[in-house]
């Protein structure tokens, strides 16, 4: 009997244990002004482990908002790096939604509302967000992007991040200019280049007399790039670098959102609009073939990373980070924080004396026929005045959205916009006396000050930082007004010159993610997403074969198989769906 009782007790315990795992979903925050917030990327662990610890966030949470002066609180949900999209999909399919979603990878807001993933927040916005409403109506571009017209009435489906001027892009192609100086010669005169740092400990104090084959101080054409690769080869041979390469490339062999792809005429290998406003699918066009031909040639010559297709977990702007940080790669796609001499480890290694400069996307002058050559890149990042934002989900419907909107509205006024864009000033840091973040990082007077020109200027520590300190200071996950025009980032001329290279060509053809696709219905979005995912999967799996030579890019038979496979996915149907939206809602 004793054994039976023990067995019974154990069985009951197992049952209880089993059932406690069912239902519930972990409970709610229990407070109508505590909101869960899914953010695309989490905190930079170099500074803090949870985004809640961001000092700018903490400062804003000390205040009261709305007519009742209520405080708000947030629980930030962040996916593991590299698993953002998986995490987002799982969140949607499980129905375990947060209250607020960062819309960086979501469907367009009208689709999210139509599907029931997001709320129409018009009444809350109009009641509690005077700053936002005024800002949106101050500019036609803002208005078109932030407001959805339904039966002639304005509706707000999300809260956009609005820029007061186009911002520098955060990443782009960059190259080791110090290697060009050291190992290159003037293509016209044959004389060695001269140049170097003009001041110690200043990563931007650089000058040189480099001239490219195209005649200018910056690379313009594909032939300029190839000239650089030859120099990089010399540099690597001289330095004894035998485990690296001239240029890295994203693992599928392309980035479908543009960049290098659109340097060969046409646009991207998915959909883009041509100069006549007609939607084209680029996957089977000769322009993409010319791109692959170029990549294959570079791969064969050993200029491209021979293992590029194995680096599947790398972000497109952080490929083979170890080799890049070791100074072994001549040309790579990287962030702003790698420009100038910021990667110099001062350890006698390959980064000793490094100077990294940005390269604009090159114009093809070698590969493909005449149609593929001499065309300016047309699918490039940057130049947007409205960028991303947040959606409020039905899960928050029962919470105090008036207070939430009042809270978020502060970021559309100058003081809040500064907190979002830059971080805290001296007074705010003093107010947040419990948090030692700013003093720990040598900025007891805050992130910025007002300079003689009346502009907001970043603290010098931030201006020279290469480790993401600037991002850690501001509340950049918040929607709001991103200050650009009246902010002096304290950038050196050489640094600013590099950033300007990345926005040298405007985006005139890539419409995905713009107002054009934001206005699509849920049904149309689903149809094109399905076609795109199949076509992209095929291209991701097979483009690499053309680059590595497993398939012959010059063979019409091999190319025919590629085109035939893509045609099976009925991309024309997607083109037909896109066309009326491109006609009605031009993004440019």
């Amino acid at each position: 009997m004793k054994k039976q009782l023990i067995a019974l007790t154990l069985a009951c315990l197992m049952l209880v244990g089993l059932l406690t795992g069912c239902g519930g979903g972990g409970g709610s925050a229990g407070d109508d002004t505590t909101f869960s917030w899914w953010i695309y990327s989490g905190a930079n662990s170099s500074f803090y482990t949870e985004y809640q610890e961001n000092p700018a966030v903490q400062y804003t949470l000390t205040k009261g908002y709305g007519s009742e002066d209520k405080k708000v609180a947030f629980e930030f949900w962040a996916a593991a790096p590299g698993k953002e999209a998986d995490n987002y999909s799982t969140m949607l399919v499980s129905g375990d939604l947060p209250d607020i979603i960062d819309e960086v990878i979501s469907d367009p807001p009208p689709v999210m509302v139509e599907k029931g993933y997001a709320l129409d927040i018009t009444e809350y916005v109009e009641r509690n967000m005077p700053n936002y409403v005024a800002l949106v109506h101050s500019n036609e571009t803002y208005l078109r992007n932030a407001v959805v017209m339904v039966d002639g009435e304005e509706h707000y489906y999300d809260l956009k991040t609005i820029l007061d001027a186009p911002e520098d892009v955060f990443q782009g192609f960059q190259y080791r200019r110090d290697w060009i100086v050291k190992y290159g010669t003037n293509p016209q005169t044959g004389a060695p280049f001269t140049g170097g740092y003009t001041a110690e400990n200043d990563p931007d104090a650089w000058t040189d007399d480099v001239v490219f084959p195209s005649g200018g101080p910056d690379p313009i054409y594909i032939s300029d790039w190839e000239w650089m690769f030859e120099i990089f080869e010399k540099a690597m041979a001289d330095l004894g670098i035998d485990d690296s390469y001239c240029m890295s490339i994203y693992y599928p062999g392309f980035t479908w959102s543009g960049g290098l792809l659109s340097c060969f005429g046409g646009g991207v290998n998915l959909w883009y609009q041509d100069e006549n406003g007609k939607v084209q699918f680029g996957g089977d066009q000769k322009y993409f073939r010319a791109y692959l031909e170029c990549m294959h040639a570079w791969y064969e010559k050993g200029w491209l990373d021979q293992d590029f297709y194995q680096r599947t977990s790398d972000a497109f702007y952080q490929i083979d980070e170890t080799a890049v940080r070791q100074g072994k790669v001549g040309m790579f796609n990287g962030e702003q924080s790698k420009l100038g001499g910021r990667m110099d480890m001062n350890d006698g290694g390959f980064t000793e004396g490094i100077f990294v400069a940005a390269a604009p996307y090159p114009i093809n002058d070698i590969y493909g026929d005449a149609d593929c050559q001499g065309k300016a890149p047309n699918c490039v990042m940057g130049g947007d005045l409205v960028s991303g934002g947040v959606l409020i989900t039905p899960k928050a419907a029962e919470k105090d959205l008036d207070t939430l909107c009042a809270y978020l509205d502060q970021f559309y006024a100058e003081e809040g916009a500064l907190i979002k864009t830059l971080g805290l000033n001296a007074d705010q840091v003093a107010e947040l006396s419990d948090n030692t973040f700013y003093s720990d990082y040598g900025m007891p007077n805050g992130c910025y000050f007002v300079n003689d020109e009346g502009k907001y200027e970043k603290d010098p520590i931030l201006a020279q930082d290469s480790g993401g300190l600037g991002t850690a200071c501001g509340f950049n996950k918040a929607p709001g007004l991103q200050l650009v025009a009246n902010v002096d980032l304290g950038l050196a001329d050489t640094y600013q010159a590099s950033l300007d290279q990345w926005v040298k060509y405007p985006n005139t053809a890539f419409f995905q993610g713009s107002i054009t696709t934001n206005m699509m219905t849920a049904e149309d979005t689903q149809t094109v997403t399905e076609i795109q995912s199949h076509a992209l999967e095929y291209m991701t799996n097979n483009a690499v074969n053309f680059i590595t030579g497993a398939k012959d890019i010059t063979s019409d038979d091999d190319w025919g198989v590629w085109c035939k496979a893509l045609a099976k996915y009925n991309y024309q149907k997607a083109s037909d769906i896109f066309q009326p939206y491109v006609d009605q809602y031009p993004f440019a």
Partner: protein
Amino acid sequence: MAKAISQAERLNDPKYKKSWAFDFKKNWALYIMFVPILVYEVVLHYIPMFGIIMAFEDYNVIDGFFGSPFVGLKHFIELFSGEEFLTALRNTVCIALIKCTLGFFPPIIFAFLLSMLRHKGFKRIVQTFSYLPNFVAAVVVASLVTQFLAKDGPLTLFFTLFGAENQNWLANNNIPVFWIIYLMMGIWQSVGWGSIMYVAAISQVSGDLHEAAAIDGANRLQRLLKITLPNIMPMVIMMLVLNVGLSFSTGFDSILLLYMPSTYNVADTVYTYTYRMAFSAGATNYSLSAASGLFQSVVGTALLIISNSLSRKLSDTSLF
């Protein structure tokens, strides 16, 4: 008037003794212990089966099972007209065949070798060490394999001594490189653990038989083939049936960790394809994923039933 039956008569009634009520009264503790298992099966295995309906709908989360439009076999047609699924199916079949043939025997051979060890202490140590890889998480094993087979990995460098090309073997998309890597990884991880059943079966073989055979002049190999093997044959067949039945659910986690887009043509399986369709960025097609999963389950179940009935016919041994 019905005749009253005394308690004693009722207890002695053979019909009552065979009844469920009698059994429950006698073994109530066992029944109670079974309840959590029952709840577990119903809640986590049977109720979710309702999700199969997704395969026949254009499912979306908001409309749910009942609100999503019914589309019949649309997703199955899409599945079989797409190149990726057919490639994944071919890979699944090939990997399953390799696992059921080349991968099936190592635990048996290992069990034979263990049974022949005379030093008990050494035998126990070998056994214990052979079990350890089974407890290593798939992600760790995959990481080890990735390191060892990288371009500068120790195994790759070892192979180059014999003239093999210096390459990242996991990026090699030629048949059957990935399949062999996967097979060898599976063998390393499960050979010890998989041999437990065989070691137990071998230990049940009567020592008298071995003794008599030895007196009659049979050597160790002969005793192995003529005595041990026939005696454990029912166990071998049962395991084979299980292996065949489960073969279609071939490695999900390990392959997911080891493959890359450039090796999808040899490494993608029905499981990984299903996962990718459901969760990959930009390709969240739950209905297609459900159709793929349903197809896999149906084929897996059919394989189990067929192999079980074959086993019953051929050797009078079966699982059910």
